[in-house]
């Protein structure tokens, strides 16, 4: 009971709490990059960005110190709701969806949605021309919301601001729609890309928990003072963000938006979670897992045989491969394969996902087979050779079948692990089960229902596998001799 009350008490006097603590915690994501808030390239311990300066200006006027709290951009609003931060300010666009969930201060910046295409594209101008094309954007952004109104557009979601433009240049996308602040810094700086018009505008504002009106009013007032004193203009000018639009925004100076309507009810959330989308995403997860595992099983066998029986350079190469792929994160390998190698090898996202996971797991399978091969006594090979079998035949007919029996339960376990690791391929734009869950969660503003559905589907796939693994273990271990 006390636990249930705790958040309510904590929220009751948020402004008082901030003043007492002397710290205003503001949430953002450094990965959003320049110019919002980012690591200073000169001094990695320090942060820079126009939002950092705005946060400091506001905190100063409130008589406290601003403290940055790093958070994944997609989960900034949930972090605010959990009370991890007092406010969120990180290119957070004022959308009807967000208005239903948080209280916004007056906007501090007005941006345009800029469409960027390849320089040689002649037929893409405006949203109408995007029919049937692949368009990249950030998940849960205003641009994403605009594109979702047009089901005829194929939307590809990214988590970083640089990758969509890299993919556009590589030909993996036909266009990118994002805020002009991002487009001008990450897209239009590339010689192969050009602007194909602005297709709308929106505002960045500071988000506060809706049940903390005193804090919202204080932050809004501090922002208003900074605007009136010309401090905001000075900051924006310093970051080359000032334009005529900002002058108009400053003149308008709207106050805090209307209080948020009540959160959507459970039934409403349920109605908006489309099970068919989840089933399709689960299918993607299963297909990627199965293909990657097939690759890993075959590749791992080759690696372990090369290590054990190959000539010295081959054995060394196989050992290096295993150490490299086991010793570095699969996430990094996926990035390198998809984005890093793109200038040399333009894989589509699905192929890169299968290849990336398959190559990684091949290293683990190789180790399993090695353990299996080592578990087969030398006497078995000798008995086979003594019968006149050539070495290859002895390996294939006598040693490998026994080694595989030792490795099989581990392989089944690895397949289950792989099934879950497929969630990592969302970073290279594949919409698999976990990605579908985050998209839906942001969409319906609840992580509970989509999360439960997602977990249920993973279990439905992994539980039969773990049953099979356990049965194999019982039947095959210990290998009777």
């Amino acid at each position, binding site marked *: 009971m006390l636990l249930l009350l705790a958040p309510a008490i904590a929220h009751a006097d948020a402004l008082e709490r901030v003043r007492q603590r002397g710290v205003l915690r503001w949430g953002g994501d450094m990965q959003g990059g320049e110019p919002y808030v980012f690591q200073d390239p000169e001094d990695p311990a320090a942060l820079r960005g126009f939002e950092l300066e705005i946060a400091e200006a506001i905190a100063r006027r409130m008589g406290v110190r601003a403290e940055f709290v790093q958070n994944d951009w997609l989960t900034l609003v949930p972090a605010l709701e959990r009370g991890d931060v007092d406010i969120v300010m990180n290119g957070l666009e004022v959308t009807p969806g967000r208005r239903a969930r948080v209280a916004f201060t007056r906007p501090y910046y007005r941006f345009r949605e800029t469409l960027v295409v390849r320089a040689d594209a002649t037929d893409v101008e405006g949203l109408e021309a995007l029919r049937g094309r692949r368009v990249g954007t950030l998940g849960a952004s205003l641009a994403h919301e605009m594109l979702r109104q047009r089901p005829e557009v194929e939307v590809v979601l990214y988590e970083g601001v640089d990758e969509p433009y890299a993919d556009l240049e590589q030909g993996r996308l036909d266009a990118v729609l994002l805020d002009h602040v991002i487009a001008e810094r990450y897209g239009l700086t590339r010689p192969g890309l050009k602007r194909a018009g602005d297709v709308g505008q929106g505002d960045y504002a500071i988000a506060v928990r809706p049940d903390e009106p005193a804090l919202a009013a204080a932050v809004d007032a501090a922002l208003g003072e900074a605007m009136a004193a010309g401090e905001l203009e000075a900051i924006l000018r310093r970051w080359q963000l000032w334009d005529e639009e900002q002058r108009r925004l400053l003149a308008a100076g709207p106050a805090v938006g209307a209080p948020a309507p009540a959160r959507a009810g459970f039934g409403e959330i349920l109605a908006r979670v489309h099970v068919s989308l989840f089933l399709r995403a689960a299918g993607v997860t299963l297909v990627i897992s199965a293909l990657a595992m097939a690759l890993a099983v075959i590749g791992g066998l080759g690696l372990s045989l090369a290590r054990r029986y190959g000539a010295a350079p081959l054995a060394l190469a196989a050992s290096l491969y295993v150490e490299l792929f086991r010793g570095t994160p699969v996430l990094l390998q996926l990035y390198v394969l998809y984005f890093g190698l793109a200038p040399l090898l333009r894989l589509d996202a699905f192929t890169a996902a299968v290849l990336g996971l398959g190559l990684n797991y091949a290293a683990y399978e190789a180790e399993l087979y090695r353990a299996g091969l080592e578990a087969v*006594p030398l*006497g*078995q090979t*000798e*008995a*086979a*050779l*003594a*019968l*006149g*079998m*050539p*070495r290859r*035949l002895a390996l294939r*007919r*006598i040693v490998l*079948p*026994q080694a595989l*029996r030792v490795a099989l339960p581990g392989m089944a376990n690895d397949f289950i692990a792989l099934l879950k690791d497929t969630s990592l391929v969302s970073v290279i734009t594949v919409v698999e089960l976990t990605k579908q869950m985050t998209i839906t969660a942001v969409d319906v503003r609840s992580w509970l229902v989509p999360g439960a559905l997602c977990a249920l589907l993973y279990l439905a796939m992994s539980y039969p596998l773990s049953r099979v693994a356990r049965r194999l273990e019982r039947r095959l271990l210990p*290998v*009777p*001799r």
Partner: protein
Amino acid sequence: MSDVVIAVRALGLELGGREILRGVDFRVRRGEVLAIVGPSGGGKTSLLRAMNYLTPFTAGAIDIAGHRLEPGMSERRHAALLCAVRTRVGMVFQSFHLFPHLTALGNVMEAPRRVLGRSAEQARRSAEELLARVGLAEHAGAHPHTLSGGQQQRVAIARALAMEPEALLLDEPTSALDPRLRGEVLAVVADLAAAGQTMVIVTHEIPFARRVADRVLVLAAGEVVEEGVPEEVFDRPRSEATRRFLGE
């Protein structure tokens, strides 16, 4: 007809600076049973394993089944020759080394099928006959781990016989068995001897060697100290090493 199946010539084996075998010289004729006896660590097993090159030797030569084995041969470079020798010379190991993932029948059929290219039907028929010959007809479908040690060793003998070897090498075929199981294996070996199978048997069973062997070779400290018919070697040993070994 005195055709020699195995001729071991001045065989030497050095391992890590230690001399395991020195100047070992003997012949085995077709249909003959040679027993190799001697104290433990005298090099008996190394000598037997050298005869199909599972243990490479470092001096001398072995003519066996129409081929010549020499020092410095490798599994990789001399694969064809080694396979040819091993196809013609069977081996039975002290601890059986049956293939645990195959049934008794599968163990016996495997090499004729895969090495000699026999049809499944042909290989199965002769495997069943061999299992019957070693008294295991009703255990054809059993996996090795369900069989007793004696039964396993009899399957191993059938497996070696399935290749119709010119010579059979047996490395202490009964030492891993407890005494009451030894008899069934020794009976099978005695039957083979009676049928004229050429065999070289490393053994500790002196009464058995006396009964089955045509000739006995005593190996001590890597050298042949005595060779002759069982009655001579066992009843009137000429060398001190033999007397000491028999006296133990």
